[in-house]
């Protein structure tokens, strides 16, 4: 159960992911480009929007570009390094967690790292390019710290909604909907949300912490909000681990014999 052995496992999975990408090179390139174009198209909407309206409650195109750089990097890193989170409800519903439970590695970590998405590489490429365009050199250290924090929120949320499968049987569609909702909510200017909506986005669906608060901190840093951001990230991470482990006690194996090739 040592830390080093988990890092080694992580490295092995990454090697497999790279080998797979190299084996299907054309597909990999198409998927990376498709995702980068996908992100660019969405940004085109905001270019057109801000071309006409200039300012949305204090947010301009620049804030939106920083938001997109952060958003795509966080979701991209989550997809590349912890890409199996989307499969959690399916693995639970079909009783396929046995493989992970029988091995001497921390189950949740092992589940998350055992799949990598090629599409998510496109997100990372796009995020880095956009970041290079919109951020000043002095903003980068804080920005990178926010990328780590946002990724943590994204992965924690993925685990939380995935764990619904332990409690509600087949929760694939529910988890997917909440996940997509989180992406949509975190890809809009945080300044448009007021009152109750803002509270929901800083608690139940922490989209505000993924992009809104970090972008506002990059423009106008305050230690109090930075503390809240870090504290909330830790709470969400711990909560996701606890809920997953509690859920695991309710898990019923499908006793399925499969070969992992």
């Amino acid at each position, binding site marked *: 159960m040592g830390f080093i052995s988990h890092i080694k496992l992580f490295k092995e999975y990454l090697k497999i992911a790279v080998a797979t990408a190299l084996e299907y090179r*054309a*597909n990999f390139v*198409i*998927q990376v*480009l*498709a*995702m980068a*174009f*996908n992100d660019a*198209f*969405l940004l*085109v*909407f905001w270019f*057109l*929007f801000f*071309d*006409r*309206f200039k*300012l*949305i*409650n204090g947010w301009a195109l620049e804030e939106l570009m920083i938001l997109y750089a952060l958003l795509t990097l966080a979701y991209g890193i989550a997809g590349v390094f912890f890409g199996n989170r989307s499969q959690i409800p399916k693995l639970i519903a079909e009783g396929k967690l046995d493989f992970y439970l029988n091995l001497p590695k921390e189950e949740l970590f092992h589940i998350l790292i055992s799949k990598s998405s090629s*599409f998510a590489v496109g997100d990372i490429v796009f995020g880095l390019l956009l970041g290079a365009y919109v951020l000043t050199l002095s903003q980068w250290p804080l920005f990178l710290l926010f990328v780590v924090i946002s990724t943590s929120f994204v992965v924690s949320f993925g685990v939380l909604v995935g764990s619904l499968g332990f409690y509600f049987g087949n929760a694939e*569609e*529910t988890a*997917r*909907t909440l996940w*997509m*909702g989180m992406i*949509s*909510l975190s890809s*809009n*200017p945080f*300044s*448009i*949300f*007021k009152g109750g*909506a803002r509270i929901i986005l800083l608690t139940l669906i922490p989209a505000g912490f993924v992009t809104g608060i970090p972008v506002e901190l990059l423009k106008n840093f305050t230690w109090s909000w930075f503390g809240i951001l870090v504290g909330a990230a830790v709470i969400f991470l711990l909560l996701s681990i606890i809920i997953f482990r509690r859920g695991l006690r309710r898990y019923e194996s499908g006793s399925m014999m499969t070969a992992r090739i």
Partner: protein
Amino acid sequence: MELAKYSALARISIGNNLVYVKDFFMSSLFIGIILFIFIQLWTVVYGTEAEVIEGFTLGMMIWYLVLTESIVTSPGRLIEDIGAEVQSGTIAQHLLKPYHYLLFKYVTTMGSTVLRFVMTFIIGALLAFFFVGGIKVTLWSVPIIILSLFLALTLHYAFMAAIGVMAFWLEDAESLYLLYQKTIFVFGGMFMPLDIFPAWLESVSKALPFSYVAYYPAHLAVRFDVNEAISVVGMQIVWISVLSVIAWALYRFCVKRITINGG
């Protein structure tokens, strides 16, 4: 006889989808979230800009978005469905059946698409009523608006069928789906009316067939005009014909290259 066969298939598709009420509810919930975001966004815009933007009041804008969302999201991930059948070769199973694959897909998809459209529209309409109230629609324009919406869904299908079959060559249906989806989002006018674009891009986007999937039918519903209605319905039929021919030709080409190695 031919028609009875396809209408039976559409009925079965609707029945199958009614079984998955929870999935339906969830996808409608997602649409609810998206519309909630749009309502927040445009309320801020109208609060700081003007009462009318390019002929749209806040109410018209939200109802426009309810309709474009309902049209664009209701067919589901059809490109990937067709792409998966084309790539895996399971499309061969359909070759033995007494129907044309693309027509079979059309009726089975339209069955569930119309159902999902209605459910999404109801959720969207409730949200729109709650936040911005209703809009004026003349009763006699309703059948023409419904016709245009139906043609929009058909054109959307024709696009996706043609692109789905292209997965035969391009290997990755999901990539194609992402790109088509975002084209409709932006240049089809799903996210906002094309009138808000810079003039040059507005005229380019309005001339492209994507605008007949989302922009024109929704525009017609919130700002009805007889002359525009005639031209929109006419152009929708033209584009459906063009894309159907393309989808049909691509499909024929693809089927000729399918090799079946026994059972």
